[in-house]
């Protein structure tokens, strides 16, 4: 490397841009460059064509656009709208197929006949009047089915068809012996395994 002997070390504070450069930059801020409309139009169309090729799912060499790159081309508001719609749809389906009372029961479609949305306070008396027991003035949502519920349904079925839908615990549209068995099975189900 050749070093000029005329090179003089200058202090950073003394460095100044050339005057011509400074004046030219100042004029640039004030002057708006003229772009003919035809040139503007050509550039715009070229940009559209280029972006249109990228948005189609194949590049010029026939390969696929990477998925990440594809996602970036989707307008952000559309992506958020799609995600929100998906979440709402999933929540709706979960709510429909897994009502809260069925979480502790046999599984999909099993409904606790002690559905307090339709039931009322318990009155000691005939089995045909058996409804959920209130707890401290309010309706309980936590009373678990027991064998007496199965027994009561079995007794009622002996007297004829049972029309109350809340007894259709297996969700097959019919209240019959299978619902009796389903209640009995639920009554003896061990929570969290059989270990003591």
């Amino acid at each position: 490397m050749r070093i000029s002997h005329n090179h003089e070390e200058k202090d950073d504070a003394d460095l100044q841009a050339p005057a011509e450069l400074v004046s030219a930059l100042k004029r640039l801020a004030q002057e708006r460059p003229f772009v003919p409309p035809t040139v503007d139009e050509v550039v715009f169309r070229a940009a559209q064509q280029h972006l249109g090729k990228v948005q189609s799912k194949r590049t010029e060499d026939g390969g696929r656009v990477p998925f990440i790159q594809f996602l970036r081309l989707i307008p952000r508001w559309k992506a958020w709208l799609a995600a929100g719609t998906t979440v709402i749809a999933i929540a709706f389906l979960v709510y429909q197929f897994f009502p809260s009372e069925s979480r502790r029961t046999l599984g999909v479609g099993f409904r606790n006949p002690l559905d307090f949305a339709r039931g009322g306070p318990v009155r000691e008396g005939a089995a045909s009047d058996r409804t959920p027991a209130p707890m401290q003035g309010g309706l309980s949502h936590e009373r678990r089915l027991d064998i007496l519920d199965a027994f009561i349904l079995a007794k009622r079925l002996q007297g004829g068809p049972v029309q109350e839908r809340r007894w259709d615990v297996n969700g097959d549209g019919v209240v019959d012996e299978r619902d009796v068995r389903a209640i009995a099975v639920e009554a003896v189900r061990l929570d969290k395994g059989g270990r003591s």
Partner: protein
Amino acid sequence: MAQILCLAAMVFGLAAGLFAQSAAPEEGRSRFCAVDIYVDSKATPLAAYQLEFVVTNGVARIVGIEGGEHAAFHEPPFYDPKAMQHERVILAAFNTGNKLPSGKTRVATIHLQAADNGPLQCELKLQAAGNAAGVRIAAEASFEERKSP
């Protein structure tokens, strides 16, 4: 390669549970015994019962469940199959007929496999008892280990 290792770890990890079973009773030291379950409904005919039985000292596991002596509860009661080979079970049965037992009656028998000749420690809790109308009644549950002849 990393994916294969992760998949193998998952498969073997899940399979490990199959082999991680509790040790079987030693040869020659285990014994089978039976515990009779009684419900005393006093003067009221017993139409339905539900009770929980637990071996509290962990020396025995449930290997079988049998019905009671009266015709109304002669069939084996309802129970969770998961109780087999474990120490806790919930039994329940009912009968809609007219011939029902009253007083103290054996409603079920639980067969156990014990690890040794030591005493069993069990707990029995009556969860529900009902009369022919489905109304809850006061009753007492008890159990007794059947003595081998």
